[in-house]
């Protein structure tokens, strides 16, 4: 941070603004996939919904809850830090990491389940019960959307681990917790993206 900023408050304001612009930009990375989803769904219609019904709804729903609770814990950690209860904040972030890993674990389980059935992206797709190309396209989109989201979950988890280490080394406290709020904003965005992915890929069959 340059000394361009007279005081800490204006420097933080700049950091928050920069973060929000970055979040907007990051969300638009998914815009292309949402666009393809709406085009293929409008184009294929019925066979597309058939493939969508094949996804395990309970798996998606549990993952949604996992991410929502993890999002809560992030907000809880920020709240505790503001009240100077740093131990509590630390454990909240640990909970977030645990929930994030659970999410990835469930995702991995779902992927292997799909792959064993022969549901693979693009040319590798060879699932006989849903031969229609719409199913192949749906599952390719499914892999791309959830895969890109999973990458963002991994990035979010690394940020959380980094924050945990900073709290433990007393670099974050009630007065200085900008990076905690920024990390929190990023994780909430990852949760919001999944909130939209869940109905599109699991519910609206």
């Amino acid at each position: 941070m340059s000394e361009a900023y007279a005081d800490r408050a204006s420097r933080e304001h700049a950091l928050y603004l920069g973060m929000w612009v970055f979040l907007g930009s990051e969300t638009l990375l998914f815009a292309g996939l949402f666009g393809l989803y709406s085009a293929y769904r409008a184009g294929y219609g019925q066979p597309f919904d058939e493939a969508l019904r094949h996804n395990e709804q309970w798996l998606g729903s549990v993952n949604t809850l996992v991410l929502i609770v993890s999002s809560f814990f992030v907000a809880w950690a920020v709240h505790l830090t503001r009240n100077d209860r740093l131990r509590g904040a630390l454990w909240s972030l640990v909970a977030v990491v645990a929930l994030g890993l659970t999410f990835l674990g469930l995702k991995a389980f779902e992927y292997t389940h799909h792959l064993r059935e022969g549901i693979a992206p693009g040319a590798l797709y060879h699932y006989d019960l849903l031969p229609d190309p719409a199913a192949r396209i749906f599952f390719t989109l499914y892999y791309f959307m959830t895969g890109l989201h999973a990458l963002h979950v991994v990035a979010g988890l690394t940020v959380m681990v980094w924050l945990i280490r900073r709290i433990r080394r007393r670099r974050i406290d009630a007065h200085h917790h900008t990076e905690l709020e920024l990390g929190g904003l990023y994780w909430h965005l990852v949760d919001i993206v999944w909130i939209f992915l869940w109905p599109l890929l699991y519910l609206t069959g």
Partner: protein
Amino acid sequence: MTALPDFWRADRGLRSWLLTTDHKRIGVLFFIGVSLSLLIGGVFALLLRLELLTPDRTLFSAATYNKLFTHHGIVMVWLFMIPAIPATFGNFFLPIMIGAKDVAFPKLNLASFYVYALGAIVTLVAMIAGGVDTGWTFYAPYSTVSLGRVGLVATGVFILGVSSILSGINFIVTTHTLRARGLGWFDIPLFVWAIYATSIIQVLATPVLGLSLALVGVDHVWGLGLFDPELGGDPVLFQHLFWFYSHPAVYIMILPAMGVISEVVSTFSHNPPLSYRAIAYSSLGIAFVGFLTWGHHMFVAGMSTFDAGLFGILSMFVAIFSAIKVFTWTATLYGGRIVFNTPLLYFLGFAFLFVFGGMSGVAVATSSLDVHWHDTYFIVAHFHFIMVGGTLTGFLAAIHYWFPKITGRGYSERWGLVSAMMVTLGFFFTFMPQFLLGNAGMPRRYYSYPDRFQWLNVLSTAGASVLALGMILTVGYLAAAIFRGDRTGANPWRSRCFEWRVPSPPPKHNFAEPPVWQIGCYAYDVEDHGSDDVGAKEAAS
């Protein structure tokens, strides 16, 4: 004020340049990268023009030709046009123009340069190791089956996109948070508005490009066919994603040039712009409405007629903002005290070429005319009129306009006018024949063509060589001026704009202490009394 060392001499040694966080030095680093890219792209362009001298093989094979026009497109669009003005002059002048010591995130600024350098290296390596022959648009399904190194080039351009986003974020936050005290949104120079609007587009459009190129790269390497008709995909959808980025991208290219032109016109006519808010709001208008019009690239691609109609209307609205700007610039000259020199000659070239290029754009947005003209040389001429006639002319005008401020020396006005004339006329004779080629029906990206098109192609190649000579001449006398140009004061053009109130070349942190400007950046009604430096007078008051 003690004489602070200027940013060239503030620190010594290569390390101080390579690890600099001074926005001016980063601007200079970008300038070097961008100029090299212009050279490489220009060489590709000349080779293309030479090959088209005869209806069939002239110098090399069709495969080489296809790679060359693709590389010309990629290098010019992503390595030159997009960073050309924002990353060089935007970096250099945005902080000074709003009275800041530096950009909001200097380390991020340096990171943006190195990401640009990495992206450029990956792209150029991919071009050397096999190259790409899909056209800069990477249309599926050819980009999926092409034997070129589509995956590597897509990665390179993706990285360049990341650099573009990082610069965009940096400039947006700088403009929001680092304006000097008392400097509202309508007191800052119009160039800052142009860079701000460009950054908004960069931040919002580039991610979609990143995704579509990633999809094409993955599809090419592992065949995960979202656009492969064999696997049920629809290639037209790739065009939707690609043009959702690429139409706003052409506004990323032209808006900064418009910013430069606003500054040049006001300074050299010593007149405030006719209506500051018209130009400022037009920049934002172009930035947002530019996102609504991408469908006019796909009138004959098999898109539904409903979309064709919708995108046709929306495209007409975006032309209005450019028209407002042109009217305002022209009216600003009225009643001014005009000093005519190179930047203003470039403005004259810009005005004619950009207006005719823009209107030919309105012509192809008229859906029935586009049916005949789409993918012909009419389109090539249209976008070169805007890109070369607009952005490159703006880039050259910016180099000449800010040359004294950056180097502290003046360039030779005589050579400037001669080279500007050569560049503008050379450009005109290169691309006006291509409008006629488009009318006659010669498609784009044609290695060999029916004989009846030959005389226009020969004329176009002749024009291209004059343009190339003009560019070489420009490099020549500017290089000479860097070392032997006579020293100029802080404000050789007697401009009111803020960047002329700091010494030339500016000190490392621009201002000894945060500036408080009473005299506005377009306040030409304030008496000048011939004093060399309004800044000095201001400091005294």
